[in-house]
């Protein structure tokens, strides 16, 4: 038995660190929310458990509508996102425009939810850019029409905003999963058997792909049903979704509302579980439908209309996000820009001049927290994947703890965590924020890095070992250099997640550690649209910088290594 190398002795601890860093905050936070939900919080005078707080939740006016709205927008946006992501992949994979579309994914993904939502809003609202383009020439509108967008009662605008952000996320994971299965040859085979593109994809590839992204789909479901920032900007406000209600209750000066908020968070957890159950049933029925069609032998050979629609939908979503962002950039330098002018009457850098001095602090905080949490998460992830425990029982615990923060609604544990953070004295500091960001950053870093790591041919390590290299040398000189691109991408993903986090930063930072995202969402409520343009633009630019680095660093490192160039 070889003596264990020091690096690997540390690596052995990594999975436990991950489990600790993820489960302690989530479970402690959950406990800190469940107890007050049942009216138990001695400090606030709640000494005996009672269902009083739940009664208060259900006595709130219009609570049923809020709940229904959360369920509906969560389910509809997830269904649409999965459908469109799968459809775009099936109809686009291997076609001429495909690489171009894939290249667009990272920039779109790096646009934080709040900025994307705001961009979409200034694009499609009745006084938005699209209406201005055709007014008054075509429409005759001197004043914008009185149409309820955003904030329509069915939450359609909210759904559109969620879909625009979730499709690229799912698509990126699906593309990664495609690398693990023999996709191209399978498609050749189905098409040789006379199946149309979509039918072949649906019958052969989808079952294999879905298994790999299933966890992410559940995470999307949980996120969409509980998102706060997107719902504030695009969702209906009379009444709003349950998630927005919860934050209002949490911030109510009336102490008793803390109990209501906690109970509401538990109700939200219940809704998410309900959605999960529904989704499981849906999975079963989709399988049945697929089997039914497989037995029927229908090949759907001519599916040009369907593939065309999916491709169009894909481009439309990309255009909506990037176009919205470009529009915000124009707003940030506009002077007076009344309806129905398509372009500003004058341009000025006043908003930038005014915002820049105020923005430097939040920018620094964003970079600091983002860098620290992404670096720690990436390091732990690399150690976990390289650790001798990989593939053993501990892995199941790591997986379970990675799933926890993505499946449990944020509100359900952040409320309790906020009080815990004050009690432990970690308070509103940088440490507390990095710790809470890690909870959300780590799962995405793992999601991003693991497939690439697993697909590295294990024979490289075998050869290195046979040539007498130690395991540390193998890791540092063979595996890491070969994986530098996915490692840096994982870091960039972690950085982007951290930069875009709203609710955790707001609640744990208590507003004293403002980041570009908390500032942007606070401003979205009412500030000058030019200022919002500045913030949204920077908010999107910061994570994008991470992706540029992830692309540029390996390109520079491997400038003399033809075999290591990007495919």
């Amino acid at each position: 038995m070889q003596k264990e190398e020091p690096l690997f002795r540390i690596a052995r601890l990594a999975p436990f660190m991950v489990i600790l860093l993820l489960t302690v905050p989530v479970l402690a936070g959950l406990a800190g929310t469940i107890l007050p939900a049942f009216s138990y919080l001695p400090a606030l005078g709640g000494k005996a458990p009672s269902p009083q707080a739940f009664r208060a939740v259900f006595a709130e006016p219009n609570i049923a509508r809020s709940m229904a709205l959360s369920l509906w927008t969560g389910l509809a946006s997830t269904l649409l996102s999965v459908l469109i992501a799968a459809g775009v992949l099936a109809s686009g994979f291997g076609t001429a425009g495909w690489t171009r579309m894939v290249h667009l994914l990272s920039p779109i993904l790096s646009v934080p939810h709040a900025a994307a939502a705001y961009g979409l809003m200034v694009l499609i609202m009745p006084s938005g850019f699209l209406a201005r383009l055709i007014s008054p020439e075509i429409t005759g509108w001197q004043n914008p029409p009185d149409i309820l967008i955003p904030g329509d009662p069915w939450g359609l605008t909210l759904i559109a905003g969620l879909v625009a952000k979730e499709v690229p996320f799912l698509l990126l994971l699906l593309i990664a999963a495609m690398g693990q299965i023999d996709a191209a040859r399978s498609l050749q085979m189905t098409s040789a058997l006379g199946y149309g593109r979509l039918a072949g994809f649906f019958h052969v590839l989808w079952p294999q792909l879905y298994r790999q992204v299933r966890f992410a789909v559940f995470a999307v479901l949980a996120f969409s049903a509980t998102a706060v920032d997107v719902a504030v900007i695009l969702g209906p406000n009379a009444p709003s979704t349950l998630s927005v209600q919860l934050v209002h209750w949490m911030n109510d000066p009336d102490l008793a509302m803390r109990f209501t908020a906690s109970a509401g968070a538990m109700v939200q957890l219940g809704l998410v579980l309900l959605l999960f159950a529904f989704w499981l049933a849906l999975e079963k029925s989709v399988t049945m439908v697929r089997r039914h069609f497989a037995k029927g032998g229908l090949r759907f050979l001519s599916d040009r209309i369907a593939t065309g629609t999916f491709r169009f939908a894909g481009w439309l979503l990309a255009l909506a996000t990037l176009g919205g962002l470009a529009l915000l950039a124009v707003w940030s330098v506009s002077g007076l820009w009344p309806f129905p002018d398509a372009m500003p009457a004058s341009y000025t850098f006043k908003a930038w001049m005014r915002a820049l001095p105020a923005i430097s602090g939040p920018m620094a905080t964003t970079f600091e927290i983002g860098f620290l949490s992404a670096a720690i998460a990436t390091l732990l992830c690399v150690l976990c994947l390289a650790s001798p425990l990989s593939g053993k029982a501990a892995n199941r615990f790591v997986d379970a703890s990675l799933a926890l923060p993505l499946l449990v609604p944020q509100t359900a544990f952040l409320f309790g965590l906020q009080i815990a953070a004050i009690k432990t004295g970690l308070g509103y500091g940088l440490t507390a924020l990095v710790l809470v960001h890690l909870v959300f950053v780590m799962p995405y870093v793992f999601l991003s890095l693991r497939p690439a790591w697993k697909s590295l041919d294990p024979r490289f390590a075998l050869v290195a070992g046979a040539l007498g290299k130690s395991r540390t040398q193998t890791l540092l000189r063979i595996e890491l250099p070969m994986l530098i691109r996915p490692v840096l991408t994982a870091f960039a993903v972690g950085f982007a997640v951290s930069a875009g986090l709203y609710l955790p930063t707001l609640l744990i930072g208590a507003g004293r550690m403002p980041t570009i995202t908390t500032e942007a969402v606070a401003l979205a409520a009412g500030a000058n649209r030019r200022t919002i343009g500045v913030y949204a633009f920077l908010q999107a630019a910061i994570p994008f910088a991470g992706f540029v680095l992830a692309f540029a660093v390996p390109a520079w490192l491997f400038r003399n290594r033809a075999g290591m160039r990007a495919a």
Partner: protein
Amino acid sequence: MKKLLAALSFSLSLSTTAFAADPDPANWPSVLEDAKGETVYWNAWGGADNINAYIAWAGGIIESRHGVKLVQVKLEDTATALAKVVAEKAAGKNEGGSVDLIWINGENFASMKSQGLLLSSPWAEKLPNWKYVDADGKPTVRTDFTIPVEGLEAPWGMAKLVFFHDSAKTKAEDLPKSAADLLAWAEKNPGRFSYPMPPDFIGTSFLKQVLSERVADKSKLLAPVKEEEFAAVSKPLFDYLDRLNPNLWRKGKAYPQNYPDMKRLMADGELDITFAFNPADGSAAIAAGELPDTVRSFIFPGGTLGNTHFVAIPYNANAKAGAMVLADFLMSPEAQAHKQDPKVWGDPTVLNLAALPAEDKAKFASLDLGIATLKPDQLGPALDEPHPSWMVRIETEWKRRYGAGN
């Protein structure tokens, strides 16, 4: 040696008591001394960038003059700051709290005062610049929504409800002159008026304006709500809203989030009449390029709501001395004159101009209040703010009736 030790221990015990006790503004030099090096976390609504820029300006000055660093914690709703103090009290954090100063008035002040969440020794009237405050001419600097201030918050600015319209789109003679007129106007011009969704401060203020105009017995509003009377007293308001809301922008199915949002909707051509609590808001928006220079303001001749907004220090603030230094600076003629400039913010002063030194008087006199700002004598009478309990009660009732506008 013994003497020295005694002196040392005496001074030590003195400094520890000085540390434990709250700073005393009557001894201003010691407050300035304590404040040096402190960081003041000022929790202030952060939804308007001209106001944020003004706060940053004030921060720069107190840092260079007094060594006090200012960080604005930008809130969407002042209640958030209250919630933080409440959470800290619940967690037993009675010192070194996260909130040093709050921009506050009305309901939130009443709530903090009654729950003992404010610095308990009266401090505001002991600040050096209090001597310029117009306590006689502006009684609301001492009575905040009927609640006696008792030196627990320092006045910062005056507010008066004022309406705005675009003279290029709507004629001045067609404008409403009362709440009743406004209803008729909205019925004639459906979809062109709205108010921020309660519990937004400005939105609820509009409801109070209507209630104050239409209530049978105004004195009822100055006392706390009596639950058994609420339905009867508030009936005129809700009868009014039942008729008004279907004629609002988006037919009352959505509302602006706050007053800057409403201003944006006017710029986008979605609304014809908006309102704000700051008479110079129109001029400020013109100066900022947010509204066309054809915007003008108007009032209801029968009177509109007027009040004062303040800054208060929580009981567990970490930088009490620094917060006092900031509050005093905000009341200074220099800061007040800068604030009243519509190119900066345009918020009216709490000071008695007649009592100011000539040099400061001149600063105010030289201000160009802007083309869309009414002169102080054109602003009409100020209606008293109802007791804060009315605000709370009206908000919940509004939510119950219209919260599901969809």
